[in-house]
């Protein structure tokens, strides 16, 4: 089960499984982002290339607007997927 919501402090909270069946649900929220934004992945258990593609799309759009997208609180599995994808530097993932 994938959930996406905006917290009181403006962070986007992702939780559960962000797979290809959840792209439209994520886009409905992430497509509204403007300006600097934090994606809090503390409760995100799983992500596939579909989820990563969505995040890259938002990153590029914000970049073109001189805004930043930051990912925080990634678990080891999510970090590994970003590592394989060659996206650790761009998102500051250790």
């Amino acid at each position, binding site marked *: 089960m994938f959930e996406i919501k905006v917290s009181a402090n403006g962070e986007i909270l992702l939780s559960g499984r962000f797979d*290809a069946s959840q792209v439209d649900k994520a886009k409905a929220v992430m497509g509204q982002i403007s300006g600097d934004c934090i994606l809090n992945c503390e409760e995100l258990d799983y992500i596939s290339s579909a989820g990563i593609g969505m995040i890259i799309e938002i990153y590029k759009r914000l970049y073109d607007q001189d805004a930043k997208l930051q990912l925080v609180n990634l678990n080891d599995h999510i970090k590994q997927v970003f590592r394989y994808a060659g996206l650790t530097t761009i998102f500051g993932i250790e």
Partner: protein
Amino acid sequence: MERKFQKVIAALEDISHFVAEFADSHQFNQELINAINLAIEEIFVNMVKHNPETKDDISISIDIEGSILAISLVDRDRRPFDVTEFEAVEPNKPIHQRRSGGMGLHLVSSLMDDVKYEYFDGFSKILMFKQLEI
């Protein structure tokens, strides 16, 4: 262990339950479970998106052969299309210079030790193998 799934993206949830069932019976850790889910999802989604001409269910099997995890996905296909020949994403290129597509296949080849393609009697079959740490 083999099961057939409707050829729609919405089947991913049922597929994750199938993987969990197999993983539970073999006491796999979460890292391995996620790797299996990811590899299967990427190939399954590829079959759904790039072979829309046939609507037959996609058959997925997961087995252990010795110390090797073997996964296969079989899809009715009118002509051979070897997905393993498709150029994967270039992870070392700056994000703005990468072409779109190919990320899923790159992840599959990163997570699995070997990926093969077969075509027989109107079916495409993707086989993935991973050495288990025993």
